[in-house]
């Protein structure tokens, strides 16, 4: 049996053998897919339908993914494919509930606002991160766990855009189309998410506390 990945180990693209195992319906291969992508899919669903309904949306998406796995040709990254299924499932659910998509970018607070003086200069300038970069931090289990808590604490719609843009590499235009948002609103959500993350990393660097 293959060793389980550590919590922060990034899923690699599927090998031909892994793809073949998935398409053949091998349960260990499917379990590995779930392990690698389930939480990211939950983040997508939370941003679209809210926390209460996200788990059900993702469970339904997994059922659909399992049913159609034989036709997955591996041209797209598995996460991209799975995210599309989750987003379709969320849209269908919202239509059935006669609800509008919840994603919007109004009334967002400014996470960095208090760090500037009225004239626009720094009141609380950035501290220097002690490591060469967060790459080294990511190798530390304590920081990895902290980072996951930070990501969970980011408001769901900002986290959704962060997932689609920074973790999956979708273009801002594509995200706007998929979520029914203007490009400006996508940018605002992304910027707020990144600023929150920056502040949290800085706090961890300064205090060792999450």
């Amino acid at each position, binding site marked *: 049996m293959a060793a*389980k*990945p*550590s*919590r*922060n*180990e*990034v*899923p690699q693209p599927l090998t031909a053998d892994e793809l073949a195992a998935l398409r053949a319906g091998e*349960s260990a291969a*499917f*379990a590995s897919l*779930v*392990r*690698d992508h*389930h*939480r*990211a899919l939950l983040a997508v669903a939370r941003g679209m339908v809210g926390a209460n309904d996200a788990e059900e949306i993702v*469970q339904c998406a*997994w*059922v659909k993914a*399992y049913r159609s796995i034989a036709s997955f040709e591996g041209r797209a990254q598995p996460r991209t494919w799975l995210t599309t299924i989750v987003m379709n499932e969320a849209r269908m659910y919202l239509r059935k509930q006669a609800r509008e998509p919840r994603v919007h970018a109004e009334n967002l607070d400014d996470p*960095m606002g208090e760090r*500037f003086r009225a*004239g*626009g*200069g*720094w009141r609380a*300038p*950035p501290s*220097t*991160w002690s490591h060469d*970069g*967060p*790459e080294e931090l*990511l190798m530390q289990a304590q920081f990895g766990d902290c*980072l*996951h808590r930070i*990501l969970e604490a980011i408001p769901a719609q900002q986290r959704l855009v*962060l997932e689609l843009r*920074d*973790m999956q*590499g979708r273009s*801002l235009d594509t995200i706007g189309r998929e979520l029914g948002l203007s490009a400006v609103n996508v*940018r605002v959500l*992304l*910027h707020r998410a*990144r600023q929150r*993350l*920056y502040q949290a*990393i*800085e706090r961890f660097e300064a205090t060792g506390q999450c």
Partner: protein
Amino acid sequence: MLTCRDLIAQADALLAGDLSLRKRLSIRMHLALCHHCRKYVAQYRRMVGLLPHVCDHANEDEVAAVLERVRQEAAEEAKGR
């Protein structure tokens, strides 16, 4: 004159290369003079570069719950045939 706050607000566009030549020049001039903003932009860039490498794996209970749901649905489907 571009303020530090203005510059931070444009950090994403700067990283994405989405700025006009005029804005880029204005930002470069500011960065040449302001070490706080230089530090912020450099660390911000590294943080964004890190994100594709962040992965949060589901625990075994979460995996088991999904597999059970898939199994149940497959069983229901087989019964209905």
